[in-house]
């Protein structure tokens, strides 16, 4: 089944509440998928810095003295540990070098995502536990997406949790199941994409990353996905400044959207939206099948 939520704020005064609003939306969707939960939040970028969200099954040894270990190989980083995750801030342009160093120095560490503004927290377990472990409620930001998983296509693991991030500041949550993900994965591997799981949703994320690398914007990449992805899907995706939604042409996976002057919100069910401010007066609708919906802060500005 899976439950997905998304919130894209238009009104800056709501930004400090983003984490709290998204947490409530996600917890409401717990009964659609109790296996794992995850959330991606787009916060304020630090000028000249890149954020890398890390996860470790042994956070004690892996994160302790990580700053010093990186400094020894000439990399300046600040580390903020949150439970099993840590957010590394490095100088922009040193992201790739840092990831390579991490693989050498701390092979147990997994990279959940990276970019100017995105932070990704995901673990197995119930949404209420996941959001409290990472103190998601206290986080602010411009937009974010979340997912609570009922596993169908791959194992219940931290890496199998959503959101999937396969490019800088890009992430995707998926409700459904793809039928051509193995073929597509082979093609994407040939194009140089690297996969961490056997999960079909990771293929969708990597597909969009590959399309955007060819110069498409998120909206155009989602249009292509309608031609190239086979199976059932409702996707909610985030980029540094954008927020997109698309459903397959059969559209049997549920989706409800709401828009006010203050925000655009997505939920698998209307229940997820009922606590949002002004929802009573929002325009609420069900996204059409095979139709791309896309908002962008930069384009709106």
């Amino acid at each position, binding site marked *: 089944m899976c439950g997905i939520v998304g919130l894209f704020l238009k009104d800056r005064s709501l930004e400090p509440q983003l984490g709290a609003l998204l947490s409530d939306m996600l917890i409401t969707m717990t009964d659609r998928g109790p296996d794992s939960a995850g959330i991606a939040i787009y916060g304020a970028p630090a000028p000249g810095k890149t954020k890398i969200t890390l996860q470790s099954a042994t956070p004690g040894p892996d994160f302790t003295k990580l700053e010093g270990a990186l400094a020894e190989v000439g990399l300046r980083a600040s580390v903020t540990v949150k439970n099993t995750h840590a957010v590394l801030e490095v100088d922009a342009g040193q992201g790739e070098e840092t990831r390579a160093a991490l693989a050498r120095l701390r092979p147990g560490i997994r990279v959940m995502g990276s970019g100017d503004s995105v932070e990704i927290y995901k673990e197995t377990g119930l949404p209420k536990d996941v959001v409290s472990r990472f103190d998601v409620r206290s986080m602010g930001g411009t937009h974010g997406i979340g997912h609570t998983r009922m596993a169908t296509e791959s194992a219940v693991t931290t890496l199998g949790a959503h959101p999937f991030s396969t490019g800088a500041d890009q992430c995707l949550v998926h409700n459904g199941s793809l039928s051509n993900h193995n073929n597509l994965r082979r093609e994407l591997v040939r194009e140089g994409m690297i996969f961490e799981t056997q999960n079909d949703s990771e293929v969708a994320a990597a597909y969009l990353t590959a399309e955007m690398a060819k110069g498409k914007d998120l909206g155009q990449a989602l249009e292509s996905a309608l031609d190239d992805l086979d199976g059932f899907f409702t996707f909610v995706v985030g980029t540094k400044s954008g927020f997109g939604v698309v459903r397959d042409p059969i*559209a049997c996976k549920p989706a409800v959207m709401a828009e006010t002057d203050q925000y655009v919100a997505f939920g698998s069910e*209307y229940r997820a939206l009922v606590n949002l401010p002004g929802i009573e007066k929002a325009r*609420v609708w*069900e996204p059409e*099948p095979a139709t791309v919906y896309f908002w962008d802060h930069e384009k709106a500005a």
Partner: protein
Amino acid sequence: MPVIDLAITPLRDLNSALHAIPQGSNDIAFEVVNPRGSHAVAVGIDAPVTVDVKGSVGYYCAGMNDGGSVTVHGSAGPGVAENMMSGKVVIEGDASQYAGATGRGGLLVIKGNAASRCGISMKGIDIVVHGSIGHMSAFMGQSGHLVVLGDAGEALGDSLYEAKLFVRGTVKSLGSDCMEKEMRPEHLTKLAELFEMAGITGVRPEEFKRYGSARKLYNFNIDNADAY
């Protein structure tokens, strides 16, 4: 009139109360507040009760309704009035997928739009939609009437049996074995009757087109093997 606040009262208590109404009871008007998208609100009614739901509901509202009159003053999630036997369900807002699916009788009125698969496998229910309906509506519809004042999405009436479909607006495409049919006097009369039951005024039956089964697919014929 009992007012049930779903913010306080468990859903099961509401449905149990609706099921426990004795024959001849006068206390048969319920109001439900704070539904907040709850699933399975007012399902399994089998008495002539009236239920006014003040807000939007989730999955399967008023399912299996037999003789009740349920009004949702908001929108409804997937599967509203699924398998209705008799009675009336009115949705003031929009309805999600498969509204009125497999319904055997009664009247479903949707004042907004209905999404995909509206009236799928309908078996005698009458459905009146003021707005538009999505794709694959009335798929395998067996009997009953689907009236749409707006437009219909793709593959209307695919693999249709004997349900009668009336659409005032455009039809994006007809499904397999569905065809436009002549509007005969008895159909105009039936439409006028459905308008009256659904409280529709200012619309003339002549504005509608009728669609039904070409009857080539549902009796097995080896010449049609490619179409299956």
